[in-house]
């Protein structure tokens, strides 16, 4: 029974300690770095010239920046859900995915945090949203969802990093023990803090993880609700609905599970982890994806029903504009990508086919960005006054920043795969021992 354990620790630590990356890995790294360069250039141009370089104008004053923000922070949700909620529900299978899912969360939240800063007209004053004693004798507007976002993102990022690091501690010790070069021993040794695996330490670790998970779950639900309140606090038709809170949470879970699925399939292919991240685990992720997808479809249905049922002229006009107006294509394409494509997962064959799962996952990831874009555009392009109607076209800088953000995420994730244990060694060992 024990002989098998050495192979898990050996294989996973070898990925970080010894593997030389093949051509696809290096090509991906180059791509990530190129996209990061786009990010830097687009950001520099933004700070130099202002938000006018984007396509935003009256009446569509919010577009890519806010869509990107919601998209990224939404994708972070599933990582916390898998790490924390599934831990509390004693779902052992999460051991194969929770490490890189939590890493995905940390990086997605980090990337998402850029956009609320970027979209400010004077981004160098972004810290004014924080409550610090200042010479202007002012305080932030506590009642605004945008201020709540500051607390939410800051808390979410810090708590995610802490939870991720805490979970990784025993595995960092494994890497420390197996490292051959002095440099790596020092690097992992410092990170591992001297972890010995003593009984008292394991007990403290298990308890701390469970407590953190207990706090992380309501945190993540509240964070995404506050992101939704950014929209629903406004009296814009199509936004001002109490549906938005649960809708955004469901959408976040949906896109996050899709991203986790995509990353799982890529990682198992890249590092030969087929037996550790098995088809059973992929199937479970696919079922979760399907389930959250159905919830999102229900939300779409309610979003269609509520305005009509409300009898409010503005709401009804807004809904009709969404379905038949100049940006109706965003709505119908979103429906196709998010509501139709994932129904393929009803078939067990599809759920157990990595290529199919990759396609469905990619469809959902793109679809969820498009959904946020659709929500913003279709509600803003026409407003209460007839004069407040316009069109929106993204500019090159919008696209560069979006592509760049993908590059930053990719670069961070590749760095994680390069340096840190991509799956949870001790939890996989436990799972193997329990079911051996």
């Amino acid at each position, binding site marked *: *029974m024990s002989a098998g354990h050495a192979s898990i620790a050996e294989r996973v630590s070898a990925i970080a300690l010894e593997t030389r990356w093949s051509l696809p890995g290096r090509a991906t790294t180059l791509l990530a770095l190129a996209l990061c360069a786009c990010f830097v250039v687009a950001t520099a141009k933004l700070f130099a010239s202002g938000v006018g370089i984007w396509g935003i104008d009256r009446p569509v004053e919010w577009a890519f920046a806010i869509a990107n923000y919601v998209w990224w922070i939404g994708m972070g949700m599933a990582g916390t859900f898998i790490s924390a909620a599934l831990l509390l529900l004693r779902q052992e299978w999460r051991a194969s995915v929770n490490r890189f899912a939590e890493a995905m969360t940390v990086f997605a939240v980090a990337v998402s945090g850029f956009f609320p800063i970027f979209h400010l007209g004077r981004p160098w004053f972004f810290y004014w949203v924080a409550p610090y004693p200042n010479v202007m004798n002012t305080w932030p507007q*506590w009642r605004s969802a945008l201020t709540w976002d500051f607390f939410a993102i800051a808390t979410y990022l810090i708590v995610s990093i802490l939870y991720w690091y805490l979970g990784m501690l025993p595995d960092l010790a494994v890497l420390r023990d197996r490292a051959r070069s002095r440099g790596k021993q020092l690097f992992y040794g410092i990170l591992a803090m001297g972890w010995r695996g003593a009984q008292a330490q394991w007990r403290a670790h298990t308890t701390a993880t469970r407590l953190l998970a207990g706090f992380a779950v309501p945190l993540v639900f509240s964070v995404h609700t506050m992101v939704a309140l950014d929209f629903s606090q406004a009296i814009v038709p199509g936004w001002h609905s109490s549906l938005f809170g649960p809708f955004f949470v469901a959408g976040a879970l949906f896109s996050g599970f899709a991203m986790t699925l995509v990353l799982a399939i890529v990682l198992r292919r890249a590092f030969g982890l087929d037996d550790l991240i098995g088809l059973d685990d992929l199937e479970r992720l696919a079922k979760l994806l399907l389930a959250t997808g159905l919830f999102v479809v229900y939300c779409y249905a309610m979003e269609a029903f509520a305005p009509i049922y409300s009898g409010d002229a503005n709401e009804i006009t807004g809904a009709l504009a969404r379905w038949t107006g100049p940006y109706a294509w965003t709505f119908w394409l979103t429906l196709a990508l998010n509501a139709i494509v994932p129904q393929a997962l009803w078939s067990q064959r599809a759920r157990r086919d990595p290529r199919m799962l990759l396609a469905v996952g990619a469809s959902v990831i793109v679809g969820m960005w498009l959904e946020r874009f659709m929500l913003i555009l279709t509600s803003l392009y026409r407003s209460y006054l007839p004069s407040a109607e316009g069109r929106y076209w993204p500019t090159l800088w919008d696209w560069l920043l979006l592509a760049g953000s993908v590059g930053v995420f990719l670069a961070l994730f590749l760095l994680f795969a390069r340096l840190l244990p991509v799956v949870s060694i001790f939890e996989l060992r436990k799972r193997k021992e329990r079911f051996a």
Partner: protein
Amino acid sequence: MNSPQLLLEFTDLDALTRAAETLRDSGRWQTEWLGPMPSDKDEITVALEPRRLARAALCGALLAGIGGFALQFWAAVHDYPLDVAGRPTDSAIAFVPAALEMAVLGAALAIVAAFFLSAKLPRFHHPLFDVDAFARGEGDHYFLLVHGEDWQHERVLHLLRANPPLAVHEVADAAT
């Protein structure tokens, strides 16, 4: 207390548990185990031990949450009240989201701090790391640290003759 202690190496937790029970029953020694994963018993236990972690979480959450709420209340009602069409400044419900986030942050920081205190980390050097077999972690074995007043190798090994350990190492002053 500089008496040498014994580090017994086992291939799995069951063998180690039997050995530990035998030694504890004799009443002469204390044991503690070290291993590559938490034991099932710790996982299944509902009680969150050590208690100080849960208490720290509660204190952190209450302090940060109530503090955050109080800050907003004082700022919005006394220090910088905004007259928005005569709406009341003490909009308590609107202060809840930020206070909630701060509570979670306070709890998380407290839990992590309490964890490091409980685990007595960071501690980069420990006598156990001088034992090669332990430091290298090959084979992912479990280790039983035996220490007590009565110091005789042979007695310990004699008691464990029924299920002997894989290897025996001597280590100085390693008890946590």
